[in-house]
């Protein structure tokens, strides 16, 4: 798939983020322009999509994402998301998005308190979101996970809404962390905000064991390009 070279993806860096440069490399490799957005900035500088990458924002103190959500950049991310801009949270980024209330539910420590760092088989469930273009429901992907707090929880009503509205993005084939309904990723009702525990930026070439992560990142670039065409530049 050819990616419009004009798309710029902002990658947020909190103190303690550690997957920012991997994410930037992976996106640049696909032909995107990238911008590192520091968490104390108040503007997204006109980017077409935002990725909140993995790591340990603010040391994960108190709860994962609990401090990060109050960073100045998060107000801009919330406005951007509210205007329909594509926002993807990977691993710690997923945790930040739930704490910020941009996605429902929360991420708890893994069942059995096991840190999981392994290739993970995943099944796409919904493709009506910014990581869905070019993929089909029930497509299987292999993408690594690397987390201690990936155990997705939400109340019964929320889970029912997620299922009914097609907001379950992907499920684990073999649940590694106790996550409810085997959920590995979800999206908001509009589909423009996605959170997932697997790290697509670590599965970008067969040399790394899988290139399946490229499919998700390519879909993000496609979404960024098409959303921009539809609504023009966002007020950042």
């Amino acid at each position, binding site marked *: 798939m050819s990616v419009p070279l004009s798309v710029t993806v902002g990658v947020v860096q909190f103190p303690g983020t550690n997957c920012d440069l991997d994410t930037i490399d992976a996106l640049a490799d696909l032909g995107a322009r990238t911008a590192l957005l520091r968490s104390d900035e108040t503007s997204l500088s006109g980017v077409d999509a935002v990725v909140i990458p993995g790591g340990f924002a603010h040391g994960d103190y*108190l*709860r994962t994402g*609990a*401090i990060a959500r*109050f960073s100045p950049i998060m107000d801009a991310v919330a406005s951007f998301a509210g205007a329909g801009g594509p926002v993807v949270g990977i691993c710690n980024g997923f945790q930040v998005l*739930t*704490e910020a209330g941009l996605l*429902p*539910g*929360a991420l*708890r*420590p*893994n*069942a*059995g*308190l096991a840190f999981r760092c392994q290739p993970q088989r995943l099944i796409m469930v919904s493709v009506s979101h910014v990581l869905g273009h070019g993929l089909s429901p029930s497509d299987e992907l292999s993408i690594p996970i690397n987390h201690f707090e990936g*155990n997705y*929880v*939400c*109340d019964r009503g929320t889970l029912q809404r997620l299922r009914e509205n097609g907001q379950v993005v992907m499920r684990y084939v073999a649940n590694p962390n*106790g996550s409810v309904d085997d959920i590995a990723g979800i999206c908001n009702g509009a589909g423009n905000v996605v959170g997932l525990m697997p790290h697509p930026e670590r599965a970008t070439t067969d040399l790394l064991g899988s290139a399946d992560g490229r499919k998700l990142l390519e879909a993000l670039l496609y979404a960024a390009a098409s959303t921009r065409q539809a609504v023009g530049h966002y007020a950042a």
Partner: protein
Amino acid sequence: MNRWDVLVEVSPRAEIADPAGATIERALAALGFAGVSGVRVGKAIRMEVTAADVSEACSVTEQMCDRLLANPVIEDARIELRAAAQDHSR
């Protein structure tokens, strides 16, 4: 203004699985402590709060819990307030 010693106890809500609590419960059983159940692991956050009166101290602490200290999706918070002891060292 008065000072209060405040203890905020944050614990996983009853319906939320608590793997740390479950692990400790199994370890206690393995050590021979029979009859232990319902082990839950939370956090204790202690602080001093200066406020005009007890209701202000309480309400400001509740706001802290709502905004930062606890995530209502997964956690409950319990607040304990005690008038701070007089400081006799000065």
